[in-house]
């Protein structure tokens, strides 16, 4: 995920040391959030406040949570996260990347925020089966659930 520099408040950038994530590809600079980062982080809108939280459980910091950074929409609908304390959140994003393909995201991506056993907030990106177009474009069979947008 990547977010336009102007979309994140300065204090949040400073507090989480996000300067090291700034990239310039022309035009407005961006702050990039990679799941494979040493300390994976992702911004979320929670109760009207923008926060930067841990992205998934890829390094196994939690024994209770799944060791991924995403979850299927169908899993949520089938009650797979029931009683976990999970709440839906919006993940602001200007761009997303799948298998090396950067594509524009207009509003953001749907996410799930869940506390781990120590009470730390962990975010998961919600996914659904890829559309035909998305599948051809990225060769991926899953795609993030975009906010009010379809690819």
């Amino acid at each position, binding site marked *: 995920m990547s977010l336009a520099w102007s979309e994140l408040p300065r204090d949040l950038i400073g507090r989480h040391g996000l300067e090291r994530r700034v990239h310039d*590809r022309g*035009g407005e600079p961006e702050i990039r959030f990679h799941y494979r980062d040493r300390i994976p982080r992702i911004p979320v809108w929670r109760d009207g406040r923008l926060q930067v939280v841990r992205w998934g459980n890829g390094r196994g910091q939690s024994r209770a949570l799944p060791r991924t950074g995403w979850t299927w929409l169908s899993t949520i609908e089938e009650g797979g996260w029931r009683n976990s304390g999970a709440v839906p959140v919006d993940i602001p994003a200007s761009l997303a990347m799948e298998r090396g393909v950067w*594509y*524009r995201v207009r509003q953001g991506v749907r996410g799930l925020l869940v506390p781990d056993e120590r009470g730390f907030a962990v975010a998961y990106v919600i996914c659904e089966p890829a559309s035909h*177009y998305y599948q*051809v*474009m990225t060769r991926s069979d899953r795609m993030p659930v975009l906010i009010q947008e379809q690819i």
Partner: protein
Amino acid sequence: MSANPQAVGHLDADCFYVSAERVRDGFLKEKAVGVLGNQGACVIAKSYEMKAAGVKTGEPIWEALVKCPEGIYVKRDFRWYEVLSRLMLDVMREFSPRVEYYSIDEFFFQAVPLPGKTLQETAVVIRDRINEQIGVPVSVGIARSRTLAKLISDTVKPFGAIATLEREAEEELLAENPVTEITGIAGRRAARLGHWGIRTCLDLARADRTLIRELLTASGEALWWELNGDPVRPILPQRPRHKALSRGGSFGEATDDPVVLYAWLVRNTERLIEELHYHGVIAGRLSVWVSYKDGTSGLGQANLALPTDRFDLLLDAARPCLRKAWRPRARAERMQLIAERLGPRDGAPLGLFDPPSVQAEVLARVKREINSHHGRFLVRSAATLPLAPIYGDSANGYDICDIRGKSCF
């Protein structure tokens, strides 16, 4: 306002699809952007930043990624591009009494100097006005013929504006450009000219006219006149009547499955019928052309017993055409359906042995009315079910060639 009948203008948008995306999305400005078509497989337009990285139009996304990993890829939206294109057309009509809607991002026009301004200043005003009002950067060329005007606007890209009616400046331009820069001269035609040492546009302009006619027929001779500043190709404010109508395109993913191929045939037949109906014409001849991944192609043609725009009759004719064009186990990647020998729908002769089918007519009307009110392809043939993902994507409901009124294809 005095018009100079000799002055022809050509306006061409700079990387139009990308510019159109930037109109509604400022975040994309100054970044390498590629617009994807054909269900996400190929780059159909690229920004100058992406071009600088070596990405070419028509390149598969996987090859473009290697050259430009920082590029941003956007799904095409022809409906939006048409909106901007028609707004540009409206602005152009404020500047000229005769405007030709040549293609979605190109216009020819009779160049009229603005009061108190030279043609050069007028070219700059037009360029800037389009950019201010629509937000799309364009290039403008004004010259003594449309071929020269187009060559100029191509040369001054991006965001240039040049007017020249002087022979000396024209010759300089012609000497700098290879003949392949002229629309209509490529491949075999360029090779034919090459045998005679004709490589630049100036070589062509200075060549013997009868030789050019011999080598390139009457259309080549017309180019010769135009390059020498004699306009023989008029500006067409109204598109001439179609001699043929065609619908089709790339499948996105190549296929050797006859069921899928048949589904494409039905989809293209339904699209072709929409077009026949819009223009109030019926087809007397139908061709089905299929191209394969290995570079080969197949063609099937049929003369219709009676000209028609009826789905069942056209499909009956198209089916054997597809069989002729089909190569078992070869992977097909494109199909085109072409309706020719067009005649007016009203007043078409009735067949003695094939009376009109009331049921089929009613069905066609109901289908057309539902689709026009509630969404294109809402009612369609069940034979297109193998293409459910295509119909599920609303972007596939609108194709570039469905934009009407342009004089080019």
